[in-house]
């Protein structure tokens, strides 16, 4: 297997490079004006490490995969075309008004609660670019009001005159019957040909999302339309660059659904967050390969803490209505919980309780923590870490940033010490411990609301600040094993190297599996199967278009089900069942749902007597492919303590006096080493903090265990 996978983030472009048995990691700065430059730099570095040259590699490699967070940035910076929208009569203000939570989606909790400051985000589609047409379908897809072509023509003309550069058509109940959306598209193409209009892309709601929900579907379509151009442009730059150097296969793009596809089968919307999600995917693969069991993946960076959930046995956790930037959209996305806590989180004084509050404000990377010495005046978690002795001021972030402890001390003294009547180190300790506990609570809640217990999990810790806070978080969460995974500095890219080509198609349905009023079970099997077949056909088409043999395509059927009138719909994956042929199948589906539900909420909470419904049928169509091999994580054999490079006084939670703590460098991380805590290991990319009571055991491929004694 020869494979390149990259993750282009806001700051770094990470590259994970597989050349038969050789696995290489490399990083370069992201070059925003032309992503290909950073890509090439990272690749060159990888090639150099593998003793190869770029041209050879690109002409021989079997695939190039690419994940990115850039779509999110484009959205935040509002870089995109003017989008116009055509909606159903009577729904003219559905998009601008959004849903009840619209003002607060994507904001931190305190802003969500602050009604006097409530303010919706600036609209992507201004009200001046929204028009309605007189048409209406009912919930069964029956026409209530017919579409009038004249009406359509005048509306399109108005939007074009008003400056629309892309058109979104999102009509009510179009998922049930797309006839009107298609008719509008046809009218636009017929009567406003490209030579007249220029190439105005037209996006239809029912093609972007198959779920019910006129607002979320319209928003999804709008974001897709808005990002279309910029994503297409960025991707084209990359693929052109690949072609220039001899790579003639299609470039693969990672999707936030946890799969990937060729560029021409990719909606812009599907690429959002694909970087971090590739990390969760890597965690999943690592767990399956090495038998880790239940895994919770954590990525602690400067401003946020991403939690991904990878339970044993392939149970998937998706968000079906995720929030992107400030918008609620309808696209199945691998679940990722993001807490606003990182190295840059600001610690402030809580006057009411005479205590310390950490976050949600962040110093971000600009100005950054006080110790970055860029004018940041407020104390952050990184400042506390520095003062406690965990960080080496001269060797932080591979020496890119020199830290200035004087600034940290000043910021903490100025903002916290007097109020709390504590000295700087006590405050720093409280900050470090506080943020660890906050994240542990986040992990615990994340797991428990899904029916899991933290103590059954292995925590994966990556991201710039992950290995530093790992022991503290684990201790508070009750987790006993922490793994800094293999290739952790490019972990998302590594995940991208494992993904399968996969497409989701889904349709909102009204299937009453069990009707509590009439006490009857669902029996319209043909109707159900027809929907499944249609969804499978669409997935097959996607994959065949990308050159796969239909015979290699596999399908997984998933249903979103619920009891009675619950808000919650639980996604249930049916492992072997793909069709319904009798009452036995219906009962099997009900049982699978019941098992999943009872696991999550406890057996006594299931309420089948209130009726059982299925709201969405979803089919994942995929093909299997080669994967990266992870070495076993069992160290085995005799371990010994390596030689330290220095020592210094370090403050730990639960120890009043500083401990003289050995400091190691990356040479110490050999597979036969064991480093007892307290200890600090500083490598090029991160700092491992081994707290007292823990030990560190490196294994192969750069993975490192934190184990509780």
């Amino acid at each position, binding site marked *: 297997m020869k494979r390149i996978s990259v993750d282009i983030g806001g700051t770094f472009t990470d590259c994970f490079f597989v050349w038969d048995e050789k696995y290489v990691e490399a990083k370069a700065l992201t070059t925003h004006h032309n992503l290909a430059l950073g890509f090439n730099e990272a690749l060159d570095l990888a090639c150099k490490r593998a003793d190869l040259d770029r041209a050879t590699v690109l002409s021989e490699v079997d695939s190039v995969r690419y994940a990115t967070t850039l779509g999110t940035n484009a959205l935040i910076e509002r870089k995109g075309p003017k989008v116009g929208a055509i909606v159903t*009569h*009577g*729904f*003219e*203000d559905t998009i*601008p*008004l959004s*849903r*009840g939570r619209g*003002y*607060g989606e994507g904001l931190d909790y*305190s802003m*969500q*609660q*602050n*009604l*006097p400051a*409530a*303010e*919706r985000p600036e609209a992507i589609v201004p009200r*001046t670019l929204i028009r309605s047409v*007189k*048409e*209406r379908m*009912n*919930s069964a897809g029956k026409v*209530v009001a*017919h579409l*009038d072509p004249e009406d359509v023509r005048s509306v399109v003309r108005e939007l074009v005159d008003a400056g629309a550069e892309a058109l979104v058509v999102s009509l*009510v*109940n179009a998922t049930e019957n797309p006839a009107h959306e298609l008719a509008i598209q046809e009218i636009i193409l017929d009567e406003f040909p490209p030579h007249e209009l220029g190439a105005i892309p037209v996006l239809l709601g029912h093609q972007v999302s198959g779920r*019910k*929900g*006129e*607002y979320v579907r319209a928003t999804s379509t709008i974001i897709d339309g808005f990002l279309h151009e910029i994503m297409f442009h960025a991707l084209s730059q990359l693929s052109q660059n690949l072609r220039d150097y001899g790579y003639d296969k299609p470039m693969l793009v990672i999707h936030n659904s946890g799969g990937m596809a060729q560029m021409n089968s990719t909606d812009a919307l599907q690429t959002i967050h694909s970087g971090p999600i590739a990390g969760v995917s890597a965690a999943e693969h690592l767990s399956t390969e090495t038998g880790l069991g239940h895994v919770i993946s954590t990525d602690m960076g400067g401003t946020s803490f991403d939690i991904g959930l990878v339970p044993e046995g392939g149970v998937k956790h998706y968000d079906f209505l995720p929030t992107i930037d400030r918008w609620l959209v309808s696209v199945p996305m691998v679940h990722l919980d993001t807490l606003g806590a990182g190295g840059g989180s600001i610690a402030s004084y*809580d006057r*009411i*309780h005479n*205590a*310390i509050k950490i976050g949600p404000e962040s110093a971000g990377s600009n100005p950054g923590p006080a110790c970055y010495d860029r004018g940041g005046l407020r104390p952050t978690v990184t400042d506390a870490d520095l003062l406690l002795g965990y960080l080496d001021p001269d060797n932080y972030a591979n020496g890119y940033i020199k830290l200035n402890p004087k600034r940290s001390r000043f910021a903490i003294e100025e903002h916290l010490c007097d109020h*709390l009547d504590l000295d700087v180190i006590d405050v720093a300790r409280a900050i470090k*411990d*506080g943020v660890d506990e906050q994240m542990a*609570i986040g992990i*615990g*809640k994340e797991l428990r*609301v899904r029916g899991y217990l933290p103590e059954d999990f292995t925590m994966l810790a990556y991201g710039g600040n992950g290995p530093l806070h790992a022991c503290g978080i684990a201790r508070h969460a009750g987790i006993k094993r922490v793994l800094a995974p293999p290739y952790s500095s490019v972990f998302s890219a590594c995940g991208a190297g494992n993904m399968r080509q996969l497409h989701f198609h889904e349709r*909102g349905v009204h299937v*009453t599996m069990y*009707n509590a009023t*009439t006490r009857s079970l669902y029996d319209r099997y043909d109707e159900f199967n027809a929907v499944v077949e249609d969804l499978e056909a669409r997935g097959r088409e996607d994959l065949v278009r990308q050159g796969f043999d239909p015979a290699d395509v596999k399908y997984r059927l998933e249903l979103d089900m619920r009891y*009675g009138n*619950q*808000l*919650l719909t639980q996604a249930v994956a049916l492992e072997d069942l793909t069709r319904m042929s009798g009452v036995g199948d219906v009962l099997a589906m009900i049982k699978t749902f019941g098992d999943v539900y009872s696991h999550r909420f406890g057996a*006594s*909470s299931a*309420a089948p*007597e*209130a009726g059982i419904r299925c709201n969405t049928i979803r089919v994942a169509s995929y093909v299997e492919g080669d994967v990266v091999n992870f070495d076993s994580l069992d160290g085995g054999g005799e371990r010994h303590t390596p030689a330290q490079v220095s020592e210094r006084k370090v403050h730990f939670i639960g120890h009043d006096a500083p401990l003289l703590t050995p400091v190691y460098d990356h040479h110490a991380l050999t597979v036969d080493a064991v480093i007892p805590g307290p200890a600090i290991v500083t490598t090029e990319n991160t700092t491992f903090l081994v707290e007292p009571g823990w030990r560190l055991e490196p294994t192969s491929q750069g993975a490192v265990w934190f184990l509780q004694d």
Partner: protein
Amino acid sequence: MTAIDETRALTAQEQEWVDKFMDETTLFLGPDPEIMRDHAISARSDHEEIVLAAGVDRLQVERIRKRIAGALDEGYEMCEAQGAAPGAKWGDLTTAIYTAAGDVAYLSCHGVIAFSAILHHPIRYIMKYWKDEPTVGIHEGDGFIHNDARFGNIHNTDQSMIMPIIRDGQVIAWVAATIHEGENGACEPGGMPSGSETPFDDGLRMSPFKIVERGHLRRDLLTFLQHSVRDPKLQLADLKVKITAVRKIMERIDKVIDEVGVDTFVGALRTTVEDVDVEVRRRISELPDGTYRMDQFMDSTLKENILIKFACKITVKGDHMTIDLRGTGPEILNRAINSPLCSVKSMFMQAILAFWWPDLPRCTSAMSCIEIISDEGTWADASYDAPMGQSLQASFRGFSAMQAMYSRMSFSTPHKYSNVVANWFNQINTFLWGGITQHGDMVGNLCADLNGMPGGAKPFKDGEDAVSPLFCAMADTAEQEVMEEEVPFMQLVSKRLVRDNMGFGKFTGGMGYEMIVAAEGTPQWGFMTVTSGAKFSSIYGMYGGYGCGAYPLAMVKGTNVYEHIRRDNSKFDLSIEKVMNERPFEDGKYLTAHMGLQFDIAKDGELYMISQGAGGGYGDPLERDPVAVVRDAELGRISQKVAEDIFAVVYDPATFRLDVEGTTAARQAARQARLQRGKPFEEFCAEFVTPEPPAELLYYGSWGDVEEITATEFTIDGPKRVTAPLKQLPIIMVPDRREVKIAALEARIAELETKYGEDVQRLT
């Protein structure tokens, strides 16, 4: 209840005899005024005294609090996800932890914070009456259920599950989950009947009682409850959800207690409560001393139009604040608009925690030190015998008084905790509905559009259009497609802002949208609306801005518009304005009414039309940026007439180009006109003020800032106006509106018969 005429002091012995007799002969235990009229935190218990005297570690307390918050959120999320009640789905619920005495120490981050003002009442009741009662008692694993607002609740549709945390045989804390369940067996579906005329029409009235005994849910009581409501599935399912959620929370808290010990835990709860109390006093002392008053007038009993006052005066002196509700109209003993005082207080709390000090932790102490003066027997402080199905009518006005007055009280303060903001809209303009669905299910519920209340204008920005209910941040509104799949009616107009529907001002209040609904394909269906404000604006403006308009219910009955639309697509051009003024459906009957519509049967294709209200405007409309006015006109948000009449802005309606000079001149002229027509205040009052309300107006409340209450009593001789202190007013009931109408018609018939000399044989 019992009372003794104390003419002579009893001896201790006599008192004991009397007490014993009374105790043995109590018919039943009603709400305890001592508990119900007190919203202050309890005094420290001995245990708390000892723990706090030993000192607390602030940082440890903070850690405990974080973990409690995590546990409560976990429980909250479970209720939201699993709850079957529609209220649960938009977050109309809460989970909370209480001190042993029942003070809320911490409420879940999300959900309805008003609950923090009232949930201590039922716990105090349980502690006072059931703890030592041999037939009841409090044991580990017990759970109490409660919904009756007269024992402390926002309204009867909310149901709580309350469980004790016990260590060494002592109750050391409580955990509860409360959900807005909706259906509760009241005379109309949905739990908030506007048609209730006696307390018995209000549905289930559960005083706190034990339904979970040592871990087991009692089937006998559960069955009784299920039989008492329309939706037994809901009653069962959500009871299970609440029990599961509370137990989950308790598991987490048990762990905390095991780690830190009972004393530290108890100390942490009490510290939290006291910290907030201290902070609230400090914040009050930042406000300028003085008195502030805001009177509101409601125009409806939800059956007929009247005018009833909600009086509110706030006095600030140092760190002390007093809220005085005297002057408020009397309770109307056969209408649903009355509210118990605790429910009004809960909306005070909502204003305090959501609009005054959104950063303040949610606990009982947030309002504890504020003194509230009110006489029992008003519609905002209703007595035991008053129906309260639509208590929100009074309590939401309590909210508005507090919200608007704080923006005024805090205007000058240099340190602000929230933005100055004009009135939020305060009515739940939505459709309640019920009947048989296309799937054959019997349902009753409402459109989540009530969550689209428009926001008030800020001093620097227009208010947000239809944004959030005043009672709950982040409450969701539904997707129509999802609704239509479940229920047999369509929103033919779902969300379209109504032109000119805003609080005008320098910055305008948020706008509201119209909704047009019609049933389709159902054997039986009906709609209800439950709001006031069709004749008198519900909310007012701030500093020269205007309030909202008045909102009618419009209907087209007797025709199936679906048939018209299917035949002719051009008929699918619906707005309240067009439909009512142009009357495009020839065979239809066009009606308007106030928005207190009791359950009304809707045939297929009959139109029901309402509009959301608007947020209050801020500042003089003549100061509004003319560019903004023209932009609003171009977007169709305002008409040209409003642009000219209200804002004095001149523009070319074809090009929407602002006429700068014309506008300057128009504004100059408008100011001159004001100086011309305005009268010096004393002179104005001499002309405007009358000694009593207009004769025809059914008015209830003080007329001006006086102690006496004016009311209209319906006597055997017809309506009679009375003015007296509240205690001396007669019982106020209003006659059945149909009888009133029949009487009027009969009188008219008699008049005509006389006029035309017709000789009518009554007996044939």
